[in-house]
């Protein structure tokens, strides 16, 4: 019987190291799974062109400015919402790899936030083709380059705010079907806003719901950067709405993470 005579190499590291390590793994996986990203480019392009084709002449009177510009935030919302590594997290849970990660000294929070950090990086990249389509059809930002950068930043925050939901579902259920279904939450939140028609063109119950729908305010903040300029009130309302959505979804994700690791020492 031999007795170990070597020094253990493992050591605890900082939270940022854990975060970067988890995010790095997630980012390396993205180009290997193009099917996870391609819909995020095709779907907004499809909705953008079909809505433009179907509604541009009608909307021109209601919008009061270029409908092409009006619809860009809608396209961005489709590109960035639901873009997450939650399906990969489900695979990790099902394969036992999540358990392997949990048996390392990595901080549990980094296992979730690292994926979200990777999502933000992907979302920023995904904004570019959507903006390119907008620029190609003649859309211009009245706020210039700083406005474009702010637009991308707000879009990234949008994606992050919504991404907590699929992670919560992934951690809670460990089911790929449930994660895919979680995207459905986005549809009523999105279509019951002024994403496709301006609020003044909405009537009755629809207008009332849109008024209280936080998505309306995020869309308006993004839209303002393109067509009306630096409107502090609109931008702050957008940020507040994002904060609210983010608090709800992140709380759900963190609770699900806590539940997932609750049985551990």
């Amino acid at each position, binding site marked *: *019987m031999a*007795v170990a005579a*070597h020094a253990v*190499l*493992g050591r605890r590291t900082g939270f940022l190291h854990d975060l970067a390590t988890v995010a790095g793994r997630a980012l390396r996986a993205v180009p290997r799974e193009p099917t996870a990203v391609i819909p995020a480019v095709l779907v907004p392009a499809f909705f953008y062109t079909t809505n433009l084709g179907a509604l541009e002449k009608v909307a021109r009177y209601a919008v009061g400015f270029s409908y092409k510009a009006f619809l860009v935030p809608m396209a961005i919302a489709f590109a960035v919402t639901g873009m997450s590594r939650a399906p990969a997290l489900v695979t990790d849970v099902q394969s036992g790899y999540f358990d392997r990660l949990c048996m390392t000294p990595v901080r549990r929070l980094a296992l979730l936030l690292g994926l979200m950090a990777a999502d933000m990086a992907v979302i920023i990249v995904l904004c570019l083709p959507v903006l390119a389509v907008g620029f190609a059809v003649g859309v211009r930002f009245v706020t210039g380059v700083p406005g474009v950068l702010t637009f991308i930043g707000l879009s990234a925050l949008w994606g992050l705010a919504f991404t907590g939901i699929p992670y919560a579902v992934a951690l809670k259920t460990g089911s790929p079907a449930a994660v895919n279904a979680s995207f459905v939450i986005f549809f009523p939140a999105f279509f019951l806003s002024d994403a496709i028609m301006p609020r003044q063109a909405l009537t009755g119950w629809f207008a009332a719901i849109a008024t209280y729908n936080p998505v309306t305010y995020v869309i308006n903040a993004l839209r303002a950067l393109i067509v009306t300029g630096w409107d502090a009130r609109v931008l702050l309302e957008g940020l507040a709405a994002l904060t609210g959505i983010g608090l709800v979804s992140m709380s759900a994700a963190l609770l699900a993470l806590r539940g997932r690791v609750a049985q551990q*020492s």
Partner: protein
Amino acid sequence: MGMPLVVEEVCSETVDTEPAIRTDALVRRFGPTSAVDGIDLVVRCGEIYGFLGPNGAGKSTLIRMLCTLLRPSAGRAVVAGHDVVAEPNEVRLRIGVALQEAALDNAQTGRELLALQGRLYGLGRDSVRRRVDEVLDLVSIGAAIDRRIGTYSGGMKRRLDLAAALVHRPELVFLDEPTTGLDPESRARVWSEVARLNRELGITIFLTTQYLEEADALAHRVGIISNGKLVAEGTPDHLKRSIGADLVVARVSGHDPAVLDRLKELQGVQMVSRVDDALLIAASDGPASVLPVASLLYASALQVDSLTLRSPTLDDVFAELTGSHIEVAGAR
């Protein structure tokens, strides 16, 4: 079930270090069921300890508690000198784990997975590169290390899983049924690698298995678990010898309760038990006992289908202690 059968042997080496694993009355309950029911265990540094039991006996639950994946319901476990509940991160730094069903990410290459594992343990870039090369020397994966894990065979995945458990150079490695589902050739390779890790690096290995030959071939000491309880412990040889030098096994049909008592009265018979359709007759001198046993059985109301003389196995130990077999249909 009473106190576990403990078969001690005098250790050829004095190991005066703290035990690698110590559990005191460790319990894990799931609702009303106790999957692990008061296990006291001491695993010495540098040994290969085999934890043997059938499916559902509590092996995996115990290993998950020792690896900090599952909080004990009661009792205490100290692994690599640290309490699994009070200092889980200290435990995690010192152990390597390969759980049942190789837990890998099919989208990564083998090398990427090992490097990630190293970084999660805080190894620097150079250390990671060096350690990946070192563990690849230990487990033979070859050029496939740069292929996606999804393309690996079951045996390669198990070896990669083992390599991942070693990247941070742990002092204690847990292997949960490391060869279940592998073909005989892959199983033999895993065995030889496990033995080499222990022999050359002195790594303490705690392995669970439902394969008797695995425990027999690898383990310095074996613990036998049944229904969450440790029912026997000792070296494989001593455990087997504890039920007799030889074993006469008679496959019988019919019912004759008196035959067991009559068999026990035969000269040289040390122990008799019935497990399903088999009568196990342990004897100090098997060849000399075959004839009297056969005569007695043929004179009884039982119908004898076969009569075999062989050496005891760990399954016989288990059968003697629990009345059932470890190896179940489909386990191989």
